[in-house]
């Protein structure tokens, strides 16, 4: 038994050793547990919360764009979409094939769908087709048993009830690109659109609203278990424009098929009441994507439907520029209201002869007569006396050749030449350049909006700036009152002399624009015609007597212009009409100005704050 005892002793020692080892190992594990759970606890708690809480944004509804009476110019409408939830489809390719039979999916769409299906979790819907028509939706619903996983849901899309009537002003929205998303994660939400042009772009941040968010508890694969917290987003604020949508439509009707632009402003405060450009385009097309064919058609059209001619079309102002020349002369003292200048039909400067539009000349004229007859020689002489720099300064002061404070992107500033400008180009300034500038030709280029601003400033004597935003989120913006704008700082007597000339143009027998005369003798319109050559007419052609701009090809015909304001005795509305290649301001633009101003005065949008019919609606129980 001694041997057994020895063996037992060895066993006991070694068993105790093993036991000690086991306890030590378990103790080490406990220490490790302490380290993981207590020492690193805070770090892991953060990780656990990140694991389970997923913050998702809710897209706020985009704000609306309204006209001055609250009519919807841009709103949101329901966009029916077909989406595929992969986990509900037994066989995704088979479902897509079945869908293709109903609504064909092209290769490009299939590739996009496959890419998104591959990238996303199986329970996240993938967009198959947007903007379903009623018939398409019906086709999908009827065939639902053959389309497992296909769900029709309602998204929103931007809707423009007035379509092309306001396209250049409202602009359009389009899906954001990746760099936009980097700026604002809200834009990463599916279906969200970003303002790409016009008011949609200018007021994009306000219209966008603030994203709401939901804190969701999600499991390891991202499936939502429950909602922990919800922060409602703020709907994008409504933008109220100064425009009168009804007037805008009427102006467009007046422009008819011409490639033309017309701007109507409240001359006392600069509110743009109508800004029409013809032809136009349908902005909602951008919502879903523009086809190549459509794009080519737009860009190849010489009437440039995509360009907002009112703010970006550059035209020589022609004779409409004569008021600026006159005012520059009057203010500098080079011309006084009583001065008379003789017109033999031409002005010679060295060996160059500058012609008046009327062969044989106008005889001796004062300022009023010069404007009334639109005598070129009169203004050649005034320009020669005044000098280009003073003319340019006056033109700028009246809103031409400078960037206006218009709240619409894509405005062009045009050009009023000066000596300095010409020197910078490497040429000295010639007196001849001054003389052609006197009748608004040569290097001068302005936009229709600048012409309307010019007319407004002459009419009101205030430095009004054209603007389109009237209300933001229901609050009237500054600039709605005449007192918000500084005065021109020109003696009323001088302005009056020019206004009188403009009155004579329309209302005096022998004026150049009798066609613009208003039917109601109690309300009179003052205006000025302009015809701007787009190509120099050679002396031979002019002297041959066979010159007739009507016979020129369309693109070589002169532009027809007209600026006006009314009523003459209490100016309220200013107007500029430019008809591309319309030949003569008196014949083409003046009648349109008449029609537009008649409509403006009839509607009188500046004095009417309540929407038409609103009082009737409110009176109902």
């Amino acid at each position, binding site marked *: 038994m001694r041997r057994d005892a020895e063996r037992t002793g060895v*066993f006991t020692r070694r068993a105790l050793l093993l036991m000690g080892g086991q306890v030590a190992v378990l103790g080490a594990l406990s220490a490790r547990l302490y380290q993981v759970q207590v020492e690193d606890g805070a770090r892991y708690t953060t990780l656990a919360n990140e694991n389970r809480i997923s913050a998702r944004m809710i897209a706020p509804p985009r704000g609306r764009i309204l006209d001055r009476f609250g009519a919807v110019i841009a709103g949101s409408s329901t966009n029916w979409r077909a989406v595929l939830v992969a986990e509900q489809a037994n066989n995704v390719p088979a479902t897509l094939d079945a869908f293709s039979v109903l609504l064909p999916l092209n290769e490009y769409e299939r590739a996009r769908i496959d890419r998104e299906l591959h990238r996303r979790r199986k329970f996240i819907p993938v967009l198959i087709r947007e903007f379903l028509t009623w018939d398409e939706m019906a086709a999908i619903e009827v065939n639902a048993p053959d389309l497992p996983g296909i769900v029709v849901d309602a998204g929103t899309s931007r809707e423009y009830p007035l379509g092309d009537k306001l396209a250049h002003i409202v602009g359009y929205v389009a899906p954001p690109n990746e760099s936009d998303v980097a700026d604002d994660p809200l834009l990463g939400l599916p279906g969200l659109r970003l303002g790409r042009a016009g008011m949609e772009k200018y007021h994009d941040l306000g219209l966008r609203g603030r994203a709401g968010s939901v804190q969701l508890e999600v499991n390891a694969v991202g499936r939502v278990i429950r909602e922990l917290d919800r922060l409602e987003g703020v709907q994008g604020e409504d933008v109220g424009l100064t425009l009168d949508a009804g007037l805008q439509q009427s102006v467009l009707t007046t422009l008819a098929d011409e490639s033309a632009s017309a701007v109507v402003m409240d001359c006392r405060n600069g509110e743009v009441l109508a800004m029409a450009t013809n032809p136009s385009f349908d902005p909602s097309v951008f919502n879903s994507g523009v086809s190549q064919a459509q794009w080519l058609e737009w860009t190849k059209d010489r009437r440039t439907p995509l360009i907002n001619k009112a703010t970006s079309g550059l035209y020589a102002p022609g004779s409409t520029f004569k008021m600026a020349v006159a005012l520059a002369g009057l203010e500098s003292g080079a011309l006084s209201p009583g001065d008379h200048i003789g017109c033999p039909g031409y002005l010679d400067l060295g060996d160059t002869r500058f012609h008046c539009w009327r062969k044989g000349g106008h005889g001796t004229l004062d300022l009023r007569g010069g404007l009334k007859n639109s005598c070129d020689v009169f203004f050649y002489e005034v320009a020669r006396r005044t000098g280009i720099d003073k003319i340019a300064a006056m033109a700028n002061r009246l809103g031409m050749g400078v960037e206006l404070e218009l709240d619409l992107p894509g405005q062009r500033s045009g050009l009023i030449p000066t000596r300095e400008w010409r020197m910078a180009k490497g040429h000295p300034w010639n007196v001849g350049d001054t003389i052609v500038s006197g009748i608004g030709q040569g290097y001068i280029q302005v936009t229709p909006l600048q012409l309307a601003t010019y007319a407004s400033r002459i009419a009101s004597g205030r430095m009004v700036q054209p603007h389109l935003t009237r209300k933001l989120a229901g609050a009237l913006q500054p600039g709605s009152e005449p007192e918000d704008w500084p005065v021109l700082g020109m003696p009323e007597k001088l302005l009056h002399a020019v206004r009188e000339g403009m009155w004579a143009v329309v209302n005096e027998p022998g004026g150049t624009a009798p066609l613009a005369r208003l039917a109601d003798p109690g309300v009179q319109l003052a205006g000025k015609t302009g015809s701007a050559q787009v190509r120099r007419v050679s002396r031979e052609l002019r002297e041959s007597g066979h010159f007739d701009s009507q016979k020129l090809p369309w693109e070589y015909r002169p532009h027809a212009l007209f600026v006006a304001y009314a009523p003459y005795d209490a100016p309220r509305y200013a107007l500029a009409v430019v008809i591309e290649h319309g030949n003569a301001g008196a014949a083409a633009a003046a009648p349109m100005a008449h029609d537009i101003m008649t409509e403006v005065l009839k509607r009188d949008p500046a004095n009417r704050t309540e929407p038409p019919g609103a009082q009737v609606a409110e009176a109902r129980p």
Partner: protein
Amino acid sequence: MDRRLWREPSFDFVAKVLQINWIYVVLLCCLAGVGYVALYSAAGGSPEPYAARHAMRFAFGLVIMLAIGLVDIRIIQKLAWPAWLGCVGLLVLVLRMGHMGKGAQRWLDLGGLQLQPSEMMKLALVLALASWFHRASWERMGNPLFLIPPLIAVLIPVGLILKEPNLGTAAITAMLGGAIFFAAGVRWWKFLLVVLPIPLLGQFAYTHLHDYQRARIDTFMHPESDPLGAGYNIIQSKIALGSGGMWGKGFLQGTQGHLDFLPEKQTDFIFTMIGEEFGLVGGLAVMGLLTLIIIGGMLIALRCRHQFGRLVALGVSCNFFLYVFVNIAMVMGVIPVGGVPLPLVSHGGSAMLTVMVGFGILMSVHVHRDVEFAALRDDR
């Protein structure tokens, strides 16, 4: 000396039942209770589908354990080598027609009952080695030739399990064999002979490992390198434990487990579940309970008056310890993930049954701690 058991007047059925270590049984019931609570939570606060079945299996296992506990240890000793042979046979069978699971052949499907022969093999090995060394005196243990048969008895099953391939269980089996060799009195220097070349062997083995085994080791070394891939389990497990903190998130409040971030929470990662919901306090309590069960088994070994019983009890305890160590070290990211459940807590029928059979044998050792075996042969 050749007394028949049933004729022993002092050893009737009632006496045997009274001899059962009831404290130990209570400890096991406590551990199974912990398992019930954890599985109830793992199912999202419901006894179905894990906890209820766990309780039923434990009840069944308890009956088996007590029944085995009443079987005379000398009968068990006689069954040791046949059991070893049978298990080796099953291992061969599993290699030939085993059910493929997770890239390795481990399971044997016997008409609905899934068997993992490698688990039973460990018990059979303990019995066989104990039976072999039971006959050996201290002097005889010094004879290298005497150690060759038991070495073969270890290497055959280890080789077969490696071939499945199941690296973790093979290593545990080898360590278990080593523990019994050690306790039986194999000289120290012989262990050094085996332990020293291990680094070389390890390098050799690494190059011959299956891809998934190598991936496990790689991700263990750098779990953050592939957070959504193979390292995911370890990271999520650590996040769950760490976010539990000192006092835990509360019963049924564990976010990691309930939101399925924690993989296999009802089996391998059940301890993580406990740590997340009951914190360090709960985790340490469970560790304490496990330690008591291990030490209790070792004490049974120490109190036994025959070498066979001593070695068997030590083997069963070491087996349990190795389970616990591998599982808990794994969920804390101390060793590579190994697919080893936490005995009596994790969900799983086959493992529970094997463990309870082991505890039955341990109980038999306790009940029959004072019985006399036939005298040592070399004493004669």
